[in-house]
């Protein structure tokens, strides 16, 4: 298997023109293998023990805790639409189903870029930047989680409650952000190579060597995103994590989830109020069902 595609440029010099498409298959297969193996492992090993906290007497367990603001959720889902569009338009033709993908791809790319900019501004202005910071507690919690995952039956130390984002979420975020930024930045350069109403394309903005790097980075980021997105979707639909997914849909989690999974010192929250209150009771009544099967 080749990792890169190279060719002779018009002067007979060897240049990189991109990653090998074999890597796409590799990413798809690796993602599937991970999902299958992980599912088997979870089944064999059973759930992790979480350190317990007593429920407070004064707050009903069904009351809501806001997890994601509407703006954050809009960002997330817009970005995910862009990401899926990008992955599909990038790789489905490579895997054999041919269609006119170029325009869709770069338009989706621009959408992704817009969401990223939006996200950055929103984060800087209205969100807690530190909630994504990987700190010593994350290292500790991550180590416990990893030990649990790798050593079957290891259950000596219960998982700690975490801040708003557990260590694996943070790491995932940073990996995805890196890949998406790499893909977007390289993609932006590649936009110079297509005609738009604003400019005439110019394949000679950079030399062959620099363009080779751009294409390879774009490809690697894209292939990386196949794995990252596959893992994300997989965890999002896993029964024990679905309540988090619902949190991204609805914006809130229950007080009970909050108490069990999160450390109020790291993630202090305001109450959203009683579900029987005037803030969307019907939604709240329906909601506690879905995460009940939390293993």
């Amino acid at each position, binding site marked *: 298997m080749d990792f890169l595609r190279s060719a002779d440029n018009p002067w007979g010099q060897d240049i990189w023109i991109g990653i090998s498409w074999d890597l796409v298959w590799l990413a798809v297969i690796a993602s599937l293998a991970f999902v299958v193996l992980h599912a088997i492992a979870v089944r064999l090993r059973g759930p992790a023990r979480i350190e317990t906290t007593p429920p407070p007497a004064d707050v009903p367990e069904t009351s809501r805790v806001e997890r994601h603001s509407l703006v954050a959720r809009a960002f997330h889902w817009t970005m995910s639409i862009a990401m899926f569009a990008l992955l599909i338009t990038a790789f489905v033709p490579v895997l054999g189903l041919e269609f006119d993908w170029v325009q869709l791809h770069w338009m989706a790319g621009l959408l992704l870029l817009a969401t990223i900019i939006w996200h950055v501004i929103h984060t800087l202005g209205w969100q807690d930047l530190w909630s994504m910071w990987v700190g010593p507690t994350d290292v500790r919690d991550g180590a416990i989680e990893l030990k649990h995952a790798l050593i079957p039956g290891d259950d000596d130390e219960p998982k700690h409650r975490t801040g708003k984002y557990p260590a694996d979420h943070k790491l995932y975020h940073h990996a995805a952000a890196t890949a998406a930024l790499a893909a977007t930045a390289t993609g932006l350069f590649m936009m110079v190579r297509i005609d738009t109403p604003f400019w005439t394309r*110019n394949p000679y903005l950079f030399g062959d060597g620099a*363009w080779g790097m751009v294409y390879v980075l774009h490809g690697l980021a894209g292939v990386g995103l196949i794995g990252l997105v596959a893992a994300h979707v997989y965890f999002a639909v896993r029964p024990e994590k679905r309540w988090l997914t619902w949190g991204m849909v609805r914006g809130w989690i229950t007080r009970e989830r909050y108490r069990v999974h999160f450390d109020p010192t790291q993630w202090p929250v305001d109450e959203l109020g009683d579900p029987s209150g005037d803030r969307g009771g019907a939604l709240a009544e329906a909601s506690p069902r879905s995460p009940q099967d939390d293993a």
Partner: protein
Amino acid sequence: MGTIRDMIAPFDFFQPATVDDALALLSEHGDDAWVLAGGLDSFDWFKDRIKRPKVVVDLGVIESLSAISESGDGLEIGAMASLTSIVNHARIRADYPLLTTAAEHVATPQIRNQGTLGGNVSQDTRCWYYRSGWPCYRAGGNTCYAAAPQAMNREHCILGASRCVAVSPSDTAPALFALDATMVVRHGRRERVIDAEDFFIGPSTDITRMTILEAGDLLTSIRIPAQWAGARVYYEKVRDRGSWDFALESVAAAFRMDGDMVADARVVVNGVAPYPVRLEAVERSIIGSRASEDLAIGAGEVAIQGVRSLRHNDYKVPMMRNLVKRAVRSVVA
């Protein structure tokens, strides 16, 4: 790294006697196999050692493939029928003079003796960047050298560009479009009959090939339905050198007239896009109208809506407008 041109690199050469044998060879060798018809496109690639197939399957001795026969109320032309045999065919000349004229406009007499109808529609583009072996999109790379700001692209496209800006070189394809021909393609035992318009694909779908033909496919014949037999037709090809050249642009059109009204029409241009382009908007603009100079002028204007020229091919826009105008003008009483 040294480059050698004009010397064919070795390959295994097969001359199957039947279509089934040819298909078996194609299926056996898959992507390694190259179908050889008249060789006028193939040998160019082989000589330049840019395409180096391991196996070449020559259709030259399969007699059935060069037959021209009645098919229902139309005609079935074997893919290996030579362009000269098409030019000289009395029934084609009588009923489908559009195809006769188009075939007559291909290259030189010697090339028409050797070249086939199947080869003429299946040939690869003549973009000189691509044919120089440069790693362009069509060659699997990531650049269109022909669309670079300073590139030499007077022969390239004004429509249908998608990263690649090469044009279809076929002189007969627009005539086949206009006559609503179908292409018979076999793959193993499976036979597909494809509209000529669907036979060609653009770079937006697959940038590395011009037609739907894939490894193992064999274009066996081209069927011309009776529908456009005896129609009023117009063909014109503009080229740099009259004695031998690919088209800068060509137009092929067929008209059914009801008195001086255009009852039905098919208008096709080539040399403007990576595939022959049927101008349905032009057809709509003239069907049901009285043929007149004004109608022709209007048709020309409709034809060029949405074109986008490159640095050196701006002339193609008025040329396309004028060719379409002339095609419609040909039925003005």
